[in-house]
């Protein structure tokens, strides 16, 4: 089916995870069988070499985000980092206050951590977003209380790629002396992450979204002005300055460092190329099909992300038709909950269009030929499914679907 220029299957789900860069693998390989030491073994050469490798990676990561070495705490990934940031701050600063501000399109790692804290007696404000998916910094300002100890607003959304105004929120947090956490799992390696410019005190990072290995991430924890303290979630040997016990995943950390090093050198050029591919995909689809809607802000967006709703076509059936193309859908049918995407609903996208959404996540290994192939396949599949759709037929007959009494 595929022409010679593209190799199916095509991977366009880079918001879920990215393929590891072979250069990252190369950096990791010696740390499995040869340099297998425990970085905490400060008494022999095996341990020293492992520690050296970890510290080199720490430097590579710190440099990419403008942090100091001591401000990087290694974790198992952004989910753990989010949990540690919210729960660790809540427990450490509970004498100071019990109020936390976040927003409705955060990743579940933040929202569910916040919900757990709520059950424990903390007060949580969930700020709304506008139709483009953006938080209004003035809403953050208005939500602040004497008892507010933390603001948690993501840098880039995983479903729609929208970039929140973190620098503005960071300034507000600074003015009021409230800690500011940002989940930058989707942002790292795609856009500039600068903890100083952002005014963030805590930043969650992940390796596998930026061509590094799975199972490793970090939490940036500001070391001065203010020095952020955290109650650890894991009790044990007191690794990572007591904030995260557990033997370090040396090969994973080396890979994370290598991925950050590559991002530091190549991100700018890479982002331009990916943005051009994304724009080609988006305009290609929009020019070939009517009633396709872009979800999220058109410009304030990650370069590779494009979330589209195809009216009258259900997302899972569209993905089934694109079976040689890996994408993701906000359709309920792809989740266990039977609820369509809470992110799209928060934007005010109707449930019908939320069910019809597809997220295309382009990455550094996608090609122009792949994009053109995907445009063609999306077009033919949407057209075929619309011919099969009673909603399309009704709309063509001039029936206002919102006025129909559905039999459920």
């Amino acid at each position, binding site marked *: 089916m595929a022409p010679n220029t593209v190799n199916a299957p095509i991977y366009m789900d880079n918001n879920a995870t990215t393929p590891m860069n072979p250069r990252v693998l190369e950096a990791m390989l010696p740390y499995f069988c040869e340099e297998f030491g425990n970085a905490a073994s400060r008494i022999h050469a095996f341990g020293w070499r492992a520690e050296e490798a970890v510290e080199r990676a720490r430097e590579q990561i710190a440099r990419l985000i403008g942090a100091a070495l001591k401000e990087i705490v290694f974790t198992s990934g952004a989910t753990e980092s989010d949990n540690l940031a919210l729960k660790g701050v809540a427990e450490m600063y509970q004498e100071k206050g019990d109020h936390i501000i976040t927003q409705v399109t955060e990743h579940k790692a933040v929202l569910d951590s916040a919900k757990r804290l709520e059950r424990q007696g903390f007060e949580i404000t969930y700020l709304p977003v506008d139709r483009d998916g953006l938080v209004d910094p003035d809403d953050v300002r208005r939500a602040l209380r004497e008892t507010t100890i933390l603001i948690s607003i993501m840098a880039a959304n995983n479903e729609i790629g929208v970039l929140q105004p973190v620098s503005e929120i960071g300034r507000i947090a600074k003015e009021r002396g409230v800690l500011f956490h940002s989940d930058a799992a989707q942002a790292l390696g795609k856009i500039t992450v600068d903890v100083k410019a952002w005014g963030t005190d805590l930043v969650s990072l992940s390796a596998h979204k930026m061509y590094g290995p799975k199972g490793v991430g970090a939490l940036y924890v500001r070391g001065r002005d203010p020095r952020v303290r955290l109650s650890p979630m894991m009790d044990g040997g007191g690794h990572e300055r007591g904030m995260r016990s557990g033997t370090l995943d040396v090969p994973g950390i080396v890979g994370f460092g290598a991925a950050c090093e590559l991002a530091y050198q190549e991100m700018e050029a890479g982002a331009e190329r990916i943005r051009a591919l994304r724009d080609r995909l988006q305009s290609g689809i929009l020019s070939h099909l009517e009633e396709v809607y872009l979800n999220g802000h058109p410009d304030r967006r990650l370069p590779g992300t494009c979330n589209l709703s195809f009216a*009258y*076509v*259900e997302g*899972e*059936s569209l993905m*089934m*038709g694109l079976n040689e193309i890996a994408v993701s859908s906000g*359709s*309920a*049918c*792809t989740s*266990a909950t*039977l609820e*369509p995407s809470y992110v799209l609903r928060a934007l005010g996208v*109707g*449930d*019908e269009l939320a*069910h019809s959404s597809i997220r295309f996540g382009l990455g550094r290994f996608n090609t122009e030929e792949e994009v053109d192939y995907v445009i063609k396949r999306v077009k033919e599949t949407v057209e075929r499914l619309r*011919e*099969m*759709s*009673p*909603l*399309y*037929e009704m709309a063509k007959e001039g029936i206002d*679907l919102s006025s129909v009494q*559905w*039999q*459920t």
Partner: protein
Amino acid sequence: MAYSDKVIDHYKNPRNVGSFSKSEQGVGTGIVGAPECGDVMKLQIKVNEKTEVIEEARFKTFGCGSAIASSSLITEWVKGKSIEEALAIKNTEIVSELSLPPVKIHCSVLAEDAIKAAIADYKKKTDQAGNETHGHHRDQ
């Protein structure tokens, strides 16, 4: 989620996609589900009014692959059946034929509802037509 071969076959080669005119004699139309739930099925039957046998069936479905397959399958099954036989089709038969997983059982329920709604619509139409005819006779 992995689909069964039969679901994939119905999705790729759906049987009896299309529409009859709703006003046509002998046609019953059932539309069930709602767009905000992610599934809408339109199922139509064309009934021989003398024999009450379903001679043709058509469907259009907005929904996942399993919903499309369930409606495609039921159009095949009802063809040639009497109305009574068609009413006896159970969603569980669709589940086992298509090997639907538990999260997709609602697709089969919707297909069963759709055929019942189409038959009810057919009956309502023929009853109305009958009443009109009777009324006409009385006028004479």
